[in-house]
Each structure stands twice: as structure tokens, then as C-alpha cells.
């Protein structure tokens, strides 16, 4: 276990309101070395807040983040920095995360210098498949895919154990996305990195993940091995998301939009009572409007927060 989040919560105050916006509530996750935990969900589900809390850009309101067995909230100074360095983040837009006036080589060298590491720029470029000559280029002289490779090289310069990838391939053109995905898989397997791969695109999450967590309105509603979660989803929300993955068969694909899920994601500042998904859920019963379902292990390593799924699992077991 390299990274463990326990009961994470994150509140943001809302001006003029006594009730805060609860961006994360009771999120517990674990990540092993060499493993990819996929996080999927729509806007307002808390996936980007989770990324920022895991990497230390935000302090959680409740709960803890442990890295390599150490509770990060109890560390400070050099020890905290040394641990934080091992969790790096790659953002969606490499344009925004690279300084336009800084050459690629200088951007990577800066990371090495700040952390007093003895990595080499040309080796880091080679790891992400870029020739040494790219060190002299500016970000605007690169294509979108090359810029994302540079962002990854910069993250790798810090010698991380964990990469938090927040929509890291979402802005790339289709023909470029495949090569960055393949690069990520290769680096993970060669370096034994742990990934938290966050995306709204379930087909990319499916492609790379060992396990998948589905989030809705700040909570994990389903969690398990990728093939169980997508092959045999327990939560009706996961079932709906599954139909958003494009299949390369037009007849099957056109049936995917026959029965779209109704409604929209509610305002996270005023989430519905009971199960947060109940207003959109095709299976909702009266209990769903009244009680919030707990995230329970219903099958081996496969958890869901759904009253109906829990009852069905109990009936099968009996």
C-alpha cells in the first residue's frame, strides 16, 4: 500500500450560507504500487477536489492521506516535502502548467534543482519518447501530445511513486491520445508507479485501470476491480455511465441512446437527501429518498452504495 485516503471530506464555505458546499464526503481509497485506480464521474462529483487533496494542493476538512505509511497531516518541514515530492500531478492542459517562456530542458532541470535530485534531462526526455533536441524547444513549438509528454517528464523528474493524472489525455486529439495512453501504461509497468487516473471518459478509465471508483456528488458510489465494475455494475449510476462508452458497432451504438438517464446532476451545494442519486435513479424506492446508503462490500472486493443492490446481493447470498 503506497497511498491511502481515509474518510476524506472537503467543505468549501458558501458566502451568505451557513451550510458549506461539501465537495468530498467520506471518501476512502487505497492504491498499491504498480496499480491504477481509475476515478470516474461527472461535473460536481468531487474528482478534481480529490486529486488536489491527494497531491496536497488542498487540506482536507476531515480524514487523512497516508503515503508509504505516514500520515501527511502529521508531517512538516523537510519530511513533509520529501513525502509530497513522491506524489506528482499531471493536469489536463499542459499549456497552463508549462511556463511559455521557459525552454523544455530548463523546465525539467528546475524540478531536479528544487528537489536536489541528480536525474538527467535527456534521460527524462527519452523516458517519454522525446529526442534530446527537444530540451531547447519552447512549449509553443510543441504539439499537444509532445507538451503532455513534457509535463509527464517533469512529473517523473521528482522521482515519484504515485502520479495523479487529472483528465491528462482529455484535451488531446484522438490520434494523439492513444500514444500518450500507451506511454502511461509503459511507464507504470517499467517504473512500478501507482496511478490515480481521473477522467470523465469511462472508455479511457476502463482501458488503463486495475480498479475503478465511481463518484457522484462528492461520494464514492461504487468501487471494485475494473472488469466487475463495468462488466457487472452494482450501482444504477455506473450502469448508465457504461452506456456512454462508444462501441465500434453502429447498431449497438445507436441503441445506447435509446433510454438516456433522466435529469441532471443536482447542485452540489444543495444535494438531495437520502441517496444523492435517487432523483435520477430508475430503481429508486421510498427508502432511497429517506436514508443514505452506505458503501458496502457486496461481492469480493466490489463495493456499492445502493439500497437496491444491497438487497439483491443479500437475496443471492441467502
Amino acid at each position: 500500500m503506497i497511498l491511502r485516503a481515509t474518510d476524506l471530506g472537503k467543505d468549501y464555505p458558501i458566502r451568505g450560507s451557513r451550510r458549506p458546499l461539501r465537495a468530498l464526503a467520506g471518501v476512502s481509497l487505497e492504491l498499491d504500487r504498480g496499480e491504477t485506480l481509475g476515478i470516474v464521474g461527472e461535473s460536481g462529483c468531487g474528482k478534481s477536489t480529490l486529486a488536489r487533496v491527494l497531491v496536497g494542493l488542498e487540506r482536507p476538512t476531515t480524514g487523512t492521506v497516508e503515503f508509504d505509511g505516514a500520515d501527511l497531516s502529521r508531517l512538516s518541514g523537510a519530511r513533509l516535502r520529501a513525502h509530497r515530492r513522491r506524489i506528482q500531478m499531471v493536469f489536463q492542459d499542459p499549456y497552463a502548467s508549462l511556463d511559455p517562456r521557459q525552454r523544455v530542458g530548463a523546465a525539467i532541470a528546475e524540478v531536479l534543482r528544487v528537489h536536489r535530485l541528480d536525474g538527467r534531462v535527456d534521460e527524462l526526455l527519452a523516458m517519454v519518447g522525446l529526442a534530446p533536441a527537444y530540451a531547447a524547444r519552447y512549449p509553443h513549438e510543441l504539439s499537444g501530445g509532445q507538451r503532455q509528454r513534457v509535463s509527464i517528464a517533469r512529473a517523473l523528474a521528482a522521482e515519484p511513486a504515485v502520479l495523479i493524472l487529472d483528465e491528462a489525455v482529455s484535451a488531446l486529439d484522438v490520434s494523439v491520445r492513444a500514444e500518450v495512453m500507451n506511454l502511461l501504461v509503459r511507464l507504470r509497468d517499467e517504473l512500478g508507479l501507482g496511478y490515480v487516473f481521473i477522467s470523465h471518459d469511462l472508455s479511457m478509465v476502463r482501458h488503463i485501470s486495475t480498479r475503478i471508483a465511481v463518484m457522484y456528488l462528492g461520494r464514492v458510489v461504487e468501487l471494485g476491480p475494473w472488469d466487475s465494475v463495468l462488466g457487472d455494475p452494482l450501482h444504477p449510476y455506473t450502469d448508465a455511465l457504461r452506456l456512454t462508452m462508444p462501441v465500434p458497432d453502429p447498431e449497438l451504438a445507436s441503441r445506447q441512446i435509446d433510454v438516456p438517464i433522466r435529469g441532471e446532476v443536482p447542485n452540489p451545494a444543495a444535494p438531495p437527501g437520502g441517496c444523492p442519486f435517487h432523483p435520477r435513479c430508475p430503481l429508486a424506492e421510498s427508502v432511497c429518498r429517506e436514508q443514505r446508503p452506505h458503501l458496502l462490500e457486496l461481492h469480493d472486493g466490489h463495493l456499492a452504495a445502493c439500497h437496491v443492490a444491497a438487497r439483491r446481493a443479500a437475496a443471492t447470498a441467502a
Partner: protein
Amino acid sequence: MSEALLEVRDLEVGLDRRRGVPIVRQVSFDVAPGEAVGIVGETGSGKTLSMLAVMGLLPPTVRRTGGQIRFEGLDLGALRPRELRRLRGRELAMVYQDPATSLNPLMTIGDQIEEALSAHGVRRAQARPRVHEALAQVGIPDPERTARAYPHQFSGGMRQRAMIATALVLSPKLLIADEPTTALDVTIQQQILALVRRLQDETGMAIVWITHDLGVVARLVDRVVVMYAGHVVEQAPTRELFRRPQHPYTAGLLASLPNPLDPSRPPLAQIAGTPPDATQAPAGCPFHDRCPQAIERCVSERPPLTARAGGSAAACWVPPGEWR
């Protein structure tokens, strides 16, 4: 296809300030009445500019430098601006990716739809009921109340529904949609696709859906036009395109998508290199420098779009039977 609703022939669009450096070249395709056509391409492929040229709404830095656009046989290039304006909205309408920038933030949703009606001579007394009808048609609840709301009071999905209501209020024969679901959440995207398909069934309008997303294409359209670096490289019925792609670029795009039906999750197929800047498209076939099938001829000679089996057409010197 002699009964085309829209006929685009050898369309060329060029940069105005650089003596018409072409960025869209020899683009030809038809749209039949009631048909749904997808125009697929990556950034810079010219897919949006081609359709803005059809609408007569090209940005000031570019202009149409050649070709013909006919709508119901009428040459749009020969129309006066006033005549073209009358046609837009009534006969052809367009919705954009970002409804936040195409809706007026200072006007209520209802007033904006009403404005579209009055611009085309519908009287105020008759307009309001049609506004409410249009909002109800796109699945916006409580139309009488929501018509009085401002765009910022709407969610992204509701704004896109309102955009579609505005576009459809005059019952156009052709709706051009430029990635209108790209910025939306995936479940809302499904809803909008289902909505558009229902409206198409109900009204019999034709659709041109501009997208980079082959998933959208597979779900919604009858026929696909694939663009690359300002050129049409393939045209095919949707089913043919997915089963038997005729151009190596199309084949590469399809192979680069993860297949959710494949439990083995093989590495994704990559297309070498990066998409070119259309103003600097290489000589010969625009795809030759990235193409795994390229032969010597591809470097020097541009392949024309030629008919293939199954109703497809492709611009490639190397037929799939000879692919390595």
C-alpha cells in the same frame, strides 16, 4: 443522389491576409433531405470552416475562394446578404459547442427565441405560444416560467437545449450542429443525442453533425465524411465506415479507440506523427507522412476521392486489399 438538399462542390476556403492560402480544399459532399451526416476530423481538419462557409458565416480572416454551395438547387454564393439572412434560421440553422457564448446573457431565453421568430416576420401575439412550444419540444420543463429565465440561470445542458429550441423554432430543413455536446457531462450528452434523434424523426429535418468523436457518429448519423488537413479523405455509410474503412487515416482513428467490448485491453493503435497545420499540408496526399501504407506515388500526387464498394468513397492510392 440527385435530390440533394445541400450540395457542396469543390469548396475552397483560404486565409484572407495571406493571398488566400487554402485551408479547406476541394471539399465535396451532399446531404439528402432528412439525412443525418457526420463530419469527422481532428483540430485543424477544416470541418467547422467548411460548414461556416455553407452558412455564409466565415470569420473575417478567412473567405471562400472557390467552389459551389447549393441549397435546394439555389446557389448560395449568388445570393445577396439579405436573401442569405432570410434563408438562415428559416431553412438552415446552426448550433455551436458553447451555448454560453452564443446566447445573449442580457436577454431572457424566451425573448431570444421570440427575436428569432420576429426577425422572420412572425407577429408577437403568435410568437409567445410558439416559444413555449419550442421549449417544451426540447424537454425544458415548465416552459412558461423558464422562458422568463436568463441563460445564467440554466445549467449547461439546459442552455444547449435552449440553443436547439432557438435553432428549430422556424422548422429549418437542415440543422448544422458544431460539437454541441462536447462540453457537456456524458449523461447529458446522451440526453441531447436522444433528443436530436427524436426531433429529427418528428420533423424530418436533415442534420450535419460536426465532431471529433467517432462515438457520437456511431450513435447518430447515417453517413460520415472524414476530413484531414482541409481535405475529405473518406465518405461512407456509417456501418461501412466502421466495418470496412477505406482510408488508412480512418482505419487508424478507429483502431486508436479502446474497444469496451474487448476484455483483453490490447495497447491502443497509434498514428505516427502529429496532425499537420492545414496551411502547410504536404504535397501529394495530405496524410502520406503519417501513413503506414504510403507508397512513392502518395508523396507527389494527390489522390482524388473515388468510389469504392458499399457506397463508400476514399482518396487513397492504396486499396485496403493491398494494405500491409
